[in-house]
C-alpha cells in the first residue's frame, strides 16, 4: 500500500508549490493512474515517493515504511519517463547489476533475468550493447529492470512515451500480466485511452493538487470517455 500524507514540494521560497498538500492512498494490487497536464506535479510526486526528491512538508510511505528509508524501496520497480541507461553495457549486464543491487546471487539472478527478458520480449537480444538498441528496446529493457526482483510495486512514468502502436500494445499486455499477478502499479501517463483500458483508479492532478480521484468506472459517466472527463475537469479548474 502506498500512502501520500499531506505531501508538498516547493522549489525555492519564491516559486509556487509543484505539489501542494496531496494526500492519497493506493491499495495493494491496485492499478492506479496519475493524470494531469504537463507541469501538474505528477513526476515530482513519483520522485518524492522514491526519495529522489525530498518533500518540503509531509511524506510518503510504502507498506507503512517512510519513503525516506531505503528499506521502503524493497520490492519496488521504477521506470523513468525517458529511459536512460548506461549505453556501454549489454542488456544482460544492466539487468545483472539490477539483480545484484537487490541482493540476488548469480544463480538466482540468471533465472530472474531470463524470466523478465521473456516477459518483455527481449529474450535473445540481451547480449548486445544497449547503444545498439532502438527506443522501444530500451523501454522494454527498462521495464524488465523495473521488474527485478519479484516487484510488488511498479512505478511507471510515461512507460509508452515514444513507442509505436505495437510497442504500446505490448507494454499494455505486460502491465495487464503484472496486474493479474497482484502487482501494485502506479502509472503516470498522458495516453488516456490506455489508462481507461487498463487502470482501476485514477487521480487527476492540476497545479500540484488532486482535483479528482476515484475508480475509473465511477468517474467516467455514461457516454463519456476518460479524455472527456479529463478535459472537463482541467478546463473547469482553469475557467
Amino acid at each position: 500500500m502506498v500512502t501520500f500524507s499531506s505531501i508538498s514540494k516547493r522549489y525555492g521560497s519564491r516559486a509556487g508549490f509543484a505539489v501542494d498538500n496531496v494526500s492519497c492512498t493506493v491499495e495493494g494490487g491496485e492499478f492506479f493512474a496519475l493524470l494531469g497536464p504537463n507541469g501538474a506535479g505528477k513526476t515530482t510526486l513519483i520522485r518524492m515517493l522514491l526519495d529522489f526528491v525530498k518533500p518540503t512538508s509531509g511524506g510518503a510511505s510504502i507498506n507503512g515504511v517512510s519513503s525516506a528509508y531505503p528499506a521502503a524501496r524493497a520490492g519496488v520497480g521504477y521506470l523513468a519517463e525517458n529511459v536512460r541507461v548506461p549505453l556501454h553495457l549489454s542488456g544482460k549486464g544492466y539487468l545483472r547489476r539490477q539483480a545484484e543491487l537487490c541482493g540476488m546471487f548469480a544463480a538466482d539472478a540468471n533465472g530472474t533475468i531470463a524470466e523478465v527478458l521473456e516477459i518483455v520480449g527481449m529474450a535473445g537480444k540481451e547480449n548486445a550493447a544497449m547503444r545498439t538498441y532502438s527506443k522501444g528496446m530500451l523501454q522494454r529493457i527498462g521495464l524488465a529492470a523495473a521488474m527485478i526482483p519479484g516487484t510488488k510495486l511498479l512505478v511507471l512514468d510515461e512507460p509508452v512515451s515514444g513507442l509505436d502502436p505495437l510497442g504500446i500494445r505490448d507494454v499494455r499486455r505486460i502491465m495487464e500480466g503484472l496486474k493479474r499477478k497482484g502487482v501494485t502499479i502506479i502509472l503516470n501517463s498522458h495516453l488516456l485511452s490506455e489508462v481507461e483500458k487498463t487502470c482501476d483508479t485514477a487521480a487527476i492532478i492540476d497545479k500540484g493538487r488532486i482535483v479528482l480521484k476515484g475508480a475509473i468506472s465511477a468517474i467516467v459517466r455514461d457516454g463519456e470517455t476518460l479524455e472527456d472527463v479529463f478535459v472537463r475537469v482541467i478546463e473547469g479548474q482553469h475557467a
Partner: protein
Amino acid sequence: MRSFFHIIKYTVFDIIHQKSFVVLLLVSIAFVMLLRGCYSGNYTVNGKTVDGLTVAWHASIVAFHLVAAGVLLIAAIFSMNLLRRDREDGTAQYMLSKPLPRITYVFGRAIGVWLVSFAFMFALHLTIFIITLVSAGGTMPGYLTASCVCSANVLFMVLLVCLMSLYMPDFAAALVGLGVVAVSYAADSFFHAAQTRLVQAMMQNHPMNAPPWAMAWPKICSLQDFAVTLINGKAFQPIGPVHPGIVMVLYVCAIAAGLVLAFDRKEI
C-alpha cells in the same frame, strides 16, 4: 555491504571502459618508459663522474613525485563528472530506486574512482621500481610503501572534486581540486626554501615561520615529502606540529562527511 562492493566493482568497470582511461594509461606508460633513457647515460657533475645507480636513484625520486602529482590530475578528471554523468545516463536513478542508501552509492562510486586512480599510480611506481632494479641493479626499499602513503592524497582529491561537482560545473570542480593541490605545493616549497641555510642566513633578522593558514592547509605536498623519506631514509621535517598524514586523514573524514550530507539533499 555487498551492494557497496558491487558499486565499487561497477565503477572500476565503467572507468576502465572509457576511452580517456586507455589514452591516459598509454601516455603514462610511454612517459615512464622514457625514463629508461636516463639510466643508461654517463653523467658528469662538477667534473666528477656520477655512477649509474646514483643517477637512477635521483631519477626515480623525481619520477615518484611526478607520478604522485600527475595521478592527482587523473583522479580529478575521473571524479569531476562522476555524479553528474550518473544522473544523466540514468545510473543514479536505477541504483537508488533499489533499497540502497545514498551513502552506499556515493561512497561506492568515490572509492571505485580512488581504487582505479591508486592502481594507476601504483602500477606506474611499480614500473619505475622494476626499471631501476633491471637497469641500475639497485632496489629502492620503501618505494612501493611510499606509493601507498600517497594514496591518501588521491582519496582526498577524489572526495573533494566529487563534493565540489555537486555545486559547480565539472571543470570548475576539477580546477578547485587542482587549485588546492597547487597552493599546497607552493606553500610547502616556500617553507622548505625558507629552511635552507642560504635563505636563513639572508633572513637572520626576520626569521620565517609558516603562517597559520599554511599549517592548516591540506598537506598534500608534505605527505608526498614524508613518503619520499621512506625511500631515502632522511629525517622528515613537518610544517607545523601535526604530522601531514594525520592532517590528511582529518581532511578526508571532513570532506567525506560533507559529501554525504550534500548528496543526501541532492535531487536525483
